């Protein structure tokens, strides 16, 4: 999870390269001013100008980060589910399928700690359940990463927005067990 996090944060360099491209036709002015103006210009155009056709680079950086997070989260989760699924079909494939009557899943599959214990005892269904937990965790981690990104940008409104979402998620996940 944290590998692409660190690579995603290197947006200083991409800001620099973008600024250079814009700066070329305006060579008469000192660099630092142009940088400041372009950044301010980008921000203003994002705020009001309806004809702007570019997104700010921090926005694009966040898009890439979240896109990669979702991609790898889903890939890792489905790889775990696939592994458990193959083992499960090899071990239990010939048994009859019984889902007509609800008995509820065994208690060890109902909490994260129980699932981890089942995995260590070699249960193929436990491995599948671990993959499903990773899948459920993916959007939650996405909210956490967004929160951190907006804290870094000092964007107060979206810090509050993401914090509210995270608080609601935490409440519903913890509330389910008490």
């Amino acid at each position, binding site marked *: 999870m944290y590998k692409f996090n660190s690579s995603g944060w290197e947006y200083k360099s991409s800001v620099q390269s973008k600024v250079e491209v814009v700066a070329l036709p305006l060579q008469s002015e000192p660099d630092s001013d142009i940088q400041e103006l372009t950044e301010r210009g980008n921000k203003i155009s994002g705020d009001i100008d309806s004809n702007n056709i570019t*997104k700010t680079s921090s926005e694009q950086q966040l898009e890439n980060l979240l896109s990669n997070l979702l991609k790898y989260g889903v890939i890792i989760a489905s790889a775990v589910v696939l592994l458990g699924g193959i083992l499960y079909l090899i071990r239990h494939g010939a048994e009859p399928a019984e889902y007509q009557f609800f008995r509820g899943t065994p208690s060890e*599959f109902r909490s994260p700690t129980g699932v981890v214990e089942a995995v260590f005892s070699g249960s193929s269904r436990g491995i599948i359940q671990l993959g499903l937990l990773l899948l459920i965790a993916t959007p939650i981690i996405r909210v956490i990463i967004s929160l951190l990104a907006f804290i870094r940008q000092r964007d107060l409104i979206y810090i509050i927005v993401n914090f509210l979402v995270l608080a609601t998620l935490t409440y519903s996940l913890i509330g389910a067990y008490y």
Partner: protein
Amino acid sequence: MNILEFSLLVWIGSFSAGFLGALTGLGGGVVIVPLLTSMFGVDIRYAVGASLVSVIATSSGAACTYIKKGYTNLRLGMFLEVATTIGAIVGALIASFISVKALTIVLAIVLIYSAYLSQQPRPENLETESTDFLANYLQLNSTYPTPDGLMSYQVQSVPAGFSIMLVAGVLSGLLGIGSGAFKVLAMDQAMRLPFKVSTTTSNFMIGVTAAASAGVYLARGYIDPGLSMPVMLGVLPGAFLGAKVLVKAKTQILRIIFSLVLVVMALKMVYNSLLGGL
């Protein structure tokens, strides 16, 4: 039917559901529940658990493609998630006090009405000047790619959209669906977003809304690994295929598919609830 055959058939069904879910922004879950219960005779609680997992898989799998292509409006999605997650908790809390049967029929009527609404012609990008103060304040206005290059759009009626999202969240918590249909309609009809932006932003939000009720389902024993495995592994490749088609497809065709799915869903719900009453 042994587990191997059962898993294979469920896998094929889920693949088709994932394709439809990604294409329409519904999230696949609404197709999974009737599929598992009516065709495979699965108990509705297991079906709802597997549906929830499929909803998160479809949403995240398709969303990563859409975000990269620049369709998804991240800020708008995050802002509206506040409404859907709070709504989902409220829905889960009041679930025990409301007759699901009565609710199902109301929902079906609303869905058919939604299908009718989405068939009404509406030119995209009518407004070039934003009249909504909140949309400016929250920096919701953005751009999206079209064949003619990037187009900018303005977000309208933020309070109305937010309110519909609260309702969508309540329904999601109550019925265990992503309720992507309502999310798309809130953004398409009330907030006047381009269709592809509302579809993809809805997809982005569904994962978080579903995760808000995942804890409850897990603790109640609804999420069965043996059933969820073929569902999730089928839904994912279907969703990726759906995402590829969406980028190329014409909006008009999408609207028709979307409306058809809504109507079929609504009729299915009425049929099921009437059958359950006998």
